[in-house]
């Protein structure tokens, strides 16, 4: 079992769930604790229900776990929905004036705060939240000073009177809890390390900035909008140009124009926006202009469930745009990887002059993770590939933009260099860019140009590492996942091992190229293979089969909009080991 402590805050949108979340995250990460946070919410600006879970502990916290130790319901609705999640030893902290607890399990501590006695709620509307934060920290045994520091930061733009008032309210909650509630047997030792806390969206934006992205264009679309927000706020410091464009068709075409001019260009969107981009994805491939597009998947199809997570866009990415062309698709494994993957994929697309797709999802995009700041390397290796930036000698050979080469890569010139004018084209073209698609159709040249482009796939495959098995080389169960399920599968494996099941894990990060032969070697001796993914049809299982003929023995799929919890996977593996089913579809137990 991992050492961890989980608290959750719920309420209506607009009630201020996010601020206490940020405060707790800061306090934990500054005291050397890792954390993982996920906010279950709805597409509504005021009202509805939102439920933020923060799990913290001394080791890496790869998911928000199965259990909750402390719930802070900000309204009756949250109390009614979530109280039953608490088991013996858990506690619920709530406004005793306005919220009634209902039936709790034996051993659950009910902690009503007399809000109107402790604070003047007519003057301070968030007093209920601040009292609860103070009380919670007192019960966790964290000194008040930590909270005071964060509150001063939180209200730094306000006048001293406001800061003092909020500290006094927090103090009242802290002291009241100290006298009236039983403290937790706090299971998490603190360390001296300090961690950065960030969302996947911020991580991908910063990874882009680190990769040297100079042009970022986007249209707002949940759950990818956080990338736009980060760039918009920080771009001037890093000399990045940011454009909000009229639609995703404009977004990608603008990025292609900027990339053609010679800068690194990136965009992020979700499935619907990506659908609009697909024609231009082919332009990037055909004109051989490298760009990176991020897809933060949400539950589809169509508008789908905009605030819920899914891994349902894989086949859209595999089949995006018509015709055959080289592409790179990668799925970050966790929020830290959202950062590190971007410079890696940019180096590949620049070297091979093709589109790259980052297949993220809402779970990572909007989740939060503590990351060692050393991981956030803002000066990673940059390889821009074969790029002509000056005229060189005046008597250079006539420039051929699409010169046929063994690698399939033709040196690219930055427009503006004298003596290298040419046309890049979405039409099929000859080595010098002249169209061979209409009047000048030429079957031999078309074939040669197609083969030139597709030869780049070999170079791409050689630049991307093959996946590796985690855990013992041989095991009774092999769990196969891709992208964001990495963390939860990792913990499920640990839990299965604790209960005596031998299990290993094959996480897939690079989807294209897949390295099918290496995967087959790794799975050769596997006894029971189970593919775990957040979609209905087993998109990765089908892809693996199409590329390698490998047919997995079992499947664990979830498509209710919420991410997997470790016990979902543990229970499913056990039922499949017992031969009860080959397809497990766990459902979220609580309505969030």
């Amino acid at each position, binding site marked *: 079992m991992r050492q961890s402590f989980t608290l959750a805050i719920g309420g209506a949108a607009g009630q201020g769930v996010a601020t206490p979340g940020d405060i707790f995250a800061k306090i934990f990460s500054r005291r050397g604790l890792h954390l993982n946070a996920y906010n279950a919410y709805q597409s509504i600006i005021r009202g509805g229900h939102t439920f933020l879970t923060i799990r913290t502990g001394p080791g890496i916290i790869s998911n928000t776990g199965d259990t909750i130790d402390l719930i802070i319901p900000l309204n009756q609705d949250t109390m009614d929905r979530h109280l039953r999640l608490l088991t013996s030893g858990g506690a619920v902290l709530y406004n005793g004036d306005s919220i009634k607890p209902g039936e709790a399990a034996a051993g659950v501590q009910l902690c009503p705060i007399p809000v109107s006695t402790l604070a003047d709620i007519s003057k301070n509307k968030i007093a209920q939240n601040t009292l609860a934060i103070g009380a919670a920290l007192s019960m966790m045994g964290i000194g008040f000073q930590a909270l005071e520091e964060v509150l001063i930061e939180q209200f730094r733009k306000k006048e001293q009177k406001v800061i003092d008032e909020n500290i006094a309210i927090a103090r009242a909650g802290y002291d009241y809890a100290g006298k009236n509630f039983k403290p937790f047997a706090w299971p998490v030792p603190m360390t001296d390390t300090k961690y950065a806390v960030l969302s996947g969206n911020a991580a991908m934006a910063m990874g882009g900035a680190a990769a040297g992205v100079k042009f970022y264009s986007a249209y707002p679309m949940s759950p990818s909008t956080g990338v736009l927000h980060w760039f918009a706020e920080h771009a001037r410091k890093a000399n990045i140009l940011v454009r909000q464009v009229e639609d995703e068709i404009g977004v990608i075409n603008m990025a292609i124009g900027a990339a053609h001019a010679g800068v690194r260009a990136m965009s992020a969107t979700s499935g619907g926006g990506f659908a609009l981009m697909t024609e231009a994805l082919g332009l990037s491939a055909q004109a051989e202009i490298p760009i990176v597009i991020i897809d933060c998947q949400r539950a589809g199809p169509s508008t789908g469930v905009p605030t819920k997570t899914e891994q349902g866009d894989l086949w859209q990415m595999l089949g995006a745009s018509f015709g055959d062309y080289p592409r790179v698709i990668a799925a970050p494994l966790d929020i830290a990887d959202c950062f590190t993957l971007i410079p890696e994929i940019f180096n590949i697309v620049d070297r091979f002059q093709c589109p790259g797709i980052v297949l993220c999802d809402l779970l990572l995009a909007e989740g939060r993770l503590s990351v060692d700041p050393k991981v956030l390397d*803002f000066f990673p290796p940059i390889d821009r590939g074969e790029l002509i930036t000056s005229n060189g000698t005046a008597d250079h050979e006539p420039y051929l933009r699409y010169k046929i080469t063994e690698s399939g890569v033709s040196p690219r010139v930055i427009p503006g260099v004298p003596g290298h004018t040419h046309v890049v084209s979405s039409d099929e073209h000859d080595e010098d860019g002249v169209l061979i698609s209409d009047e000048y159709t030429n079957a031999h040249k078309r074939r040669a140009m197609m083969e030139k482009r597709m030869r780049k796939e070999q170079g791409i495959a050689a630049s991307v590492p093959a996946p590796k098995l985690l855990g013992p080389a041989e095991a009774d169960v092999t769990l196969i996942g891709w992208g964001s399920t990495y963390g939860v599968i990792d913990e499920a494996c640990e839990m299965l091992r604790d209960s005596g099941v031998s299990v290993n894990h094959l996480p897939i990060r690079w989807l294209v190229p897949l390295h099918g032969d290496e995967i087959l070697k790794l799975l050769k001796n596997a006894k029971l293979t189970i593919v775990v993914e957040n979609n209905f049809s087993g998109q990765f299982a089908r892809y693996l089969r199409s590329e390698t003929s490998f047919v997995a023995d079992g499947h664990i799929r979830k498509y209710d909009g919420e991410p997997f919890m470790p016990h979902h996977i543990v229970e499913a593996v056990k039922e499949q080991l017992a031969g009860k089913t080959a397809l497990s579809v766990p459902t979220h137990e609580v309505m969030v």
Partner: protein
Amino acid sequence: MATETIVPNLVQMSDFKGRVDPDWCPGCGDFGVLAAVQKALVELQIPNHQVATISGIGCSSNFPGFIETYGMHTLHGRSLPVATGMKMANHAMTVLATGGDGDGFGIGCGHFIHSMRRNVDLTYIVMDNQIYGLTTGQTSPTSRIGMKTKSAPFGNVEGPLNPISLALAAGATFIARGFSAEQKHLTELIKQGIQHKGFSFIQVFSPCVTYNKDNTFQWFRPRVKKLEDDPSYDSSDWVMAAERALLWGDEIPIGKFFERNDIPALHESEPVLANAPLVAQDIRMSKAAAQSFIDELM
């Protein structure tokens, strides 16, 4: 040390001669537009490597292939966002967008409107032939009511769009209309459009000799009247421009409808571009910026 006079190589028409001859139908209006653009660039003495010509798809969108510059032949309707990205990443380049009425006013109309409101420093030349040519003669957004085409064999029942009025409403800062057969006049408009700091839109009547039997050279010739010939016309007057834009019939105005120079071009409004074009800037951010991004998360 002797003083040396460096004589720059003069920019000549031959610099802009494309690698292949245009494959437009003999007599197509687009030939005149190509020649006018080449002449304008020569008269302005802009070297070909400092020019980007970016088009969508269609007969007139084959334009970049017929002129020697940094050309891009993009997707149907998408010349403007590509050209915007190119200009913003390297505002030292002269960026021209070229295309037809279907490309710009049909499939690409959304980008047309937004490019104008952004005041991107592009010169957008639309060769308007009021028909879809490359797809062999269907109704276009500027086809007149009643016009018989392959997609409206019993006559078009949808009203045409007025590109000049649309450009005025969308906030374009330079709006002109030329006629392919009026070479000198058109060349002058293109020169002014290139020199204008901001979005310049030039609609050019460029008759399709194969599929449009209504709006022919012969039809236009007696109708077009130059605004420049009217001493009372003031192209800084938006209301006057809006009135003249509605004229269509026995008299169709050509010339510069409108120009204003009091609004900065998009790249001039971006502090990030103040010191150098984006492409000329360091790909690495400063250490201080990187540190501040990390500090914010701690």
